[in-house]
């Protein structure tokens, strides 16, 4: 009896269309939060918790039944739109769910009432956009989700209201709109070239021709602008540094990864079969420049949030180093990207939440004036130290596994230049992490008046950082998850 009812429950659990829930639930939650700000906090917490459960449900579904494809409206591509989930989508959804959960809990304590009422619906709409983007299989649908994501991210960045926040948000808006328009132009050319906007169908129909080169050039330009790849990164530091702390966390951890995810998907489905090593080399070169430039700039910063923002620029560079290293059927470089993306999301979100704590504590985020915070905010400093471990790439963190895999891929192919860039980047990361930690121990010249930091905020930051470190231990099951549906081997044949 017991066994029967549990298998029955399992069957019911497996039958729920989790992918659709992932999209509709945050959207409905946003509407409820807008109509009734009084219940918004509870609705948000419920929603992000249910979001995490749904990701688990979808993961189980994919494990049992293989790659998940849902024909919205019953029509199926190319007439209709499809939802698609494989290992790579699941990784991104998991990343979104975990960071989203921590940031939501953090935000319950961070915002005061008028700002919180504005924050919750915007945040849930951003979550909807992220989920919809990671589940999308249709490039015009991706355009709409990109716009939803970009506009909500801009609105969230401007929430603090001051001159810096507004200026950062304006730059962000200009960059995101330009990126979307370039992407849309590419979509238009691809549609008229090959008669569909579905990724799988396009992958089957694409042949090398001027229209494809034009479309891919436009799409790559748009997406690298949105991902803030050097030298198109100019908008990121002001926007991420002047936004409220939980917003910066989401921007650096999730939003930049979304456009990277699309670029990766399209690379695997379109570019790679066309044989475009040159673009891979270019992306790798820009990635290397991003690592070096971002790290140098991070070392020079005197404000913590700007330091962390430039660190994001550098870490994104690592992701792009994988493009020239991914050859043939060897998926080491892509596995490295998966580990790096997830661990960076967790660690960077933790770092921004730490910055928020320090801002609440001392009223500023000047690194040199961090007044013995190690004594007064031990959890926060521990969070920063653990997150820094992952950013530097120290074992046993997730960042270490990612950098190790990337290094391995580089050395196997004799790319000593890229390996050297990675080493130098790691050293410089250690430099800026230890700079901050060093000042955390010292006394400031002028003693600062301090305010209490709610425990929720400290624990949210710490748990994210611990997760980033523990990821190293979970690398094997993680890579098994990512491999479901063979996203990286999909250049040969569609799933």
């Amino acid at each position, binding site marked *: 009896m017991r066994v029967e009812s549990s298998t029955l429950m399992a069957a019911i659990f497996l039958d729920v269309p989790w992918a659709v829930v992932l999209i509709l639930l945050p959207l409905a939650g946003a509407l409820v939060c807008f109509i009734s700000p009084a219940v918004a906090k509870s609705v948000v917490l419920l929603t992000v918790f249910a979001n995490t459960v749904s990701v688990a449900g979808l993961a189980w579904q994919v494990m049992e039944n293989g790659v998940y494809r849902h024909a919205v409206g019953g029509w199926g591509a190319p007439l209709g*739109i499809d939802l698609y989930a494989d290992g790579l989508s699941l990784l991104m959804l998991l990343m979104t769910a975990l960071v989203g959960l921590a940031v939501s809990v953090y935000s319950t304590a961070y915002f005061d009432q008028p700002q919180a009422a504005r924050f919750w619906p915007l945040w849930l709409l951003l979550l909807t956009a992220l989920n919809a983007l990671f589940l999308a299989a249709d490039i015009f649908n991706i355009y709409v989700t990109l716009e939803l994501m970009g506009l909500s991210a801009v*609105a969230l960045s401007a929430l603090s209201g001051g001159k810096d926040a507004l200026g950062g948000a304006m730059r962000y808006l200009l960059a995101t709109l330009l990126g979307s328009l370039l992407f849309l132009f590419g979509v238009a050319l691809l549609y008229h070239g090959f008669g569909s906007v579905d990724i799988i169908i396009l992958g089957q129909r694409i042949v090398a021709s001027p229209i494809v080169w034009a479309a891919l050039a436009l799409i790559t330009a748009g997406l690298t602008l949105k991902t803030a790849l050097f030298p198109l990164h100019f908008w990121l530091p002001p926007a991420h540094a002047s936004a409220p702390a939980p917003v910066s966390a989401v921007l650096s951890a999730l939003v930049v990864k979304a456009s990277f995810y699309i670029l990766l998907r399209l690379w695997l489905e379109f570019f790679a079969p066309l044989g475009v090593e040159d673009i891979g080399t270019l992306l790798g070169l820009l990635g290397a420049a991003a690592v070096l430039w971002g790290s140098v700039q991070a070392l020079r910063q005197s404000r913590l949030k700007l330091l962390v923002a430039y660190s994001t620029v550098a870490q994104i560079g690592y992701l792009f180093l994988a493009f020239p290293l991914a050859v043939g059927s060897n998926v080491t470089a892509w596995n490295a990207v998966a580990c790096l993306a997830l661990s960076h999301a967790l660690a960077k979100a933790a770092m921004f939440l730490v910055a928020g704590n320090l801002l609440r504590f001392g009223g500023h985020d000047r690194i040199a004036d961090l007044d013995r915070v190690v004594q007064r905010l031990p959890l926060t400093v521990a969070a920063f130290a653990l997150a820094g471990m992952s950013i530097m790439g120290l074992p046993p963190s997730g960042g270490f596994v990612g950098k190790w895999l990337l290094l391995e891929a580089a050395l196997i192919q004799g790319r000593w230049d890229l390996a050297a860039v990675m080493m130098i980047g790691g050293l410089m990361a250690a430099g800026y992490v230890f700079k901050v930690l060093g000042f955390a121990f010292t006394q400031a010249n002028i003693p600062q008046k301090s305010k209490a930091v709610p425990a929720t905020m400290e624990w949210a930051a710490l748990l994210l950082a611990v997760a980033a470190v523990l990821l190293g231990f979970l690398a094997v099951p993680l890579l098994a998850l990512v491999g479901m549906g063979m996203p990286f081997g999909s250049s040969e044949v569609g799933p």
Partner: protein
Amino acid sequence: MEALSLLQWSFDGLLGLSLLWLAWQALVCTDLFKAVVLFIAFGLLMALTWVRLAAPDIALAEAAIGAGLTGALLLSALARSRVIQANGESLLNVPLAARKLQFRWLVAIILLIVAAGLGYAVLGLPPEAAGLSTEVAANLTLSGVGNPVTAVLLNFRAYDTLLEMAVLLLALLAVWSLGGLPQREAVTDPVLDSLVRLLIPVLILVSAYLLWVGADAPGGAFQAGSVLSAAGVLLLLAGWRLPLRLAQRPLRFALVAGTGTFIAIAVLTLISTGRLLEYPPAQAGTLILILEAVATISIGVTLAALFQGASPVHKEKQ
């Protein structure tokens, strides 16, 4: 026949050149007010182009939203900035590009090369291609409506429309979250008042007509909603404000009704057929009409609220 084709070619050529010329003028004109007016004229010319390209649905949307509402938003922004900069220099007459000449030439040359490349790529496309029109035509009877564009928007690719309504709502939420803006100077104008009294009923009728006829002829929720918002904008310009008891919950309900109904129908179809937004063919037409009707109201209210700028119950104190 040759004369006709020559006539068509010269018309199209003239239209194309005018578009480019108007756009260029709007972008480089020194007087901002003139630039916005030129932009509105450009929008209307675009609407004409859409008609020429056999896209009447888009022509309606462009005239109402692209030229009309966007133009209204731009003019309203100019008016408000005049209030903001009452002490300082006017926002209207501002010198152009603050960039060095060499930089501008470099950008111009690069973009010329890009344009040439794109033009070459586009001209390489085969002169005849059906795209998805055959699939749409084959499934049109199952979709519940006769207008293929409405079928695509509200049935085949309804998921995109759901997300698009979320984008519209998001824009309003974002504008409200940014806080209050200086109000435009109030205007009492007898001409405006009588125009409003005349036009509002007409606009509401036109909106309802566009909604109803959109099932089988050019029209639909977005066009109808934008005409409704034009009525709202006129009312706001004439000084009317939403009564306070309607400004909190009822207004918010009206704003989310479109997206909310969409989600409700999505959940219903999910439960009944297991697939998102799969309408049973017999009820498809009714479902689409319900969706469009609620969406029209939501879109109208949202666009008018976007024009107004601040939440009606916005408190100045943070």
